[in-house]
């Protein structure tokens, strides 16, 4: 049984949902692969890695993007950062793992994390700016090849 997820969103709540599914799948003996594209690529960034973005617009985009999994916005009720702060407090209260911890759990379960090369180009992100947990860099053909063999394909 195979599960693939395209993580297009760079929001904390959506990332948690995606990881929750991948981790659950792995614990059920299913092969799970997550493709991080567009805003999702920020989830895989090394915290405080210097940006390699070039050009005025590229640099602006980089400055306005989340620095990593530890500081993602909420898709709703972000309230200029108050939202994630309060959500994290609530999660700690219920002992829910945050995105960083879910990345570790996913890796432990054997989930494959794949970064989209086109997105990296667009966002001015190089390979060494990604966390070590990333398994490969790939494109749409890799995704489609995995997805065509999978029973569950989700777009988050």
């Amino acid at each position, binding site marked *: 049984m195979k599960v693939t997820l395209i993580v297009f969103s760079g929001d904390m709540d959506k990332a948690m949902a995606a990881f929750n599914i991948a981790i659950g799948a792995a614990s059920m003996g*299913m092969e799970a692969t997550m493709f991080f594209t567009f805003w999702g690529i920020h989830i895989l960034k090394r915290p405080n890695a210097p940006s390699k973005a070039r050009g005025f617009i590229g640099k602006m985009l980089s400055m306005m993007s989340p620095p990593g999994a530890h500081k993602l916005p909420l898709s709703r009720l972000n309230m200029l950062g108050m939202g994630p702060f309060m959500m994290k407090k609530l999660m700690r209260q219920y002992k829910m793992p945050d995105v960083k911890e879910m990345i570790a759990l996913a890796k432990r379960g054997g989930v494959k994390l794949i970064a989209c090369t086109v997105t990296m180009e667009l966002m001015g992100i190089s390979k060494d700016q990604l966390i070590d947990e990333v398994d490969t860099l790939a494109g749409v053909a890799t995704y489609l090849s995995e997805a065509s063999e999978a029973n569950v394909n989700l777009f988050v």
Partner: protein
Amino acid sequence: MKADLTLDAYGLLCPMPIVRTAEKIKEMQPGQVLEVISTDEGIKEDMPAWCRATKNEFLGIEKDGDVYKAYVRKK
């Protein structure tokens, strides 16, 4: 129901109970019974589903006060 091993997942929310169950089952011998203690309401459906997917035997769930006790036999 009696069990060979107990996994205390009290207070842990989905997917942690089944993640821990998967890890614990790996350490067990075929035929052994695992008791999983959980406060997650979803465990009533999740444990049978997990068993179906991993081909382990679901023996049942009991409610004991405010916790659920699920029993799984490793195949």
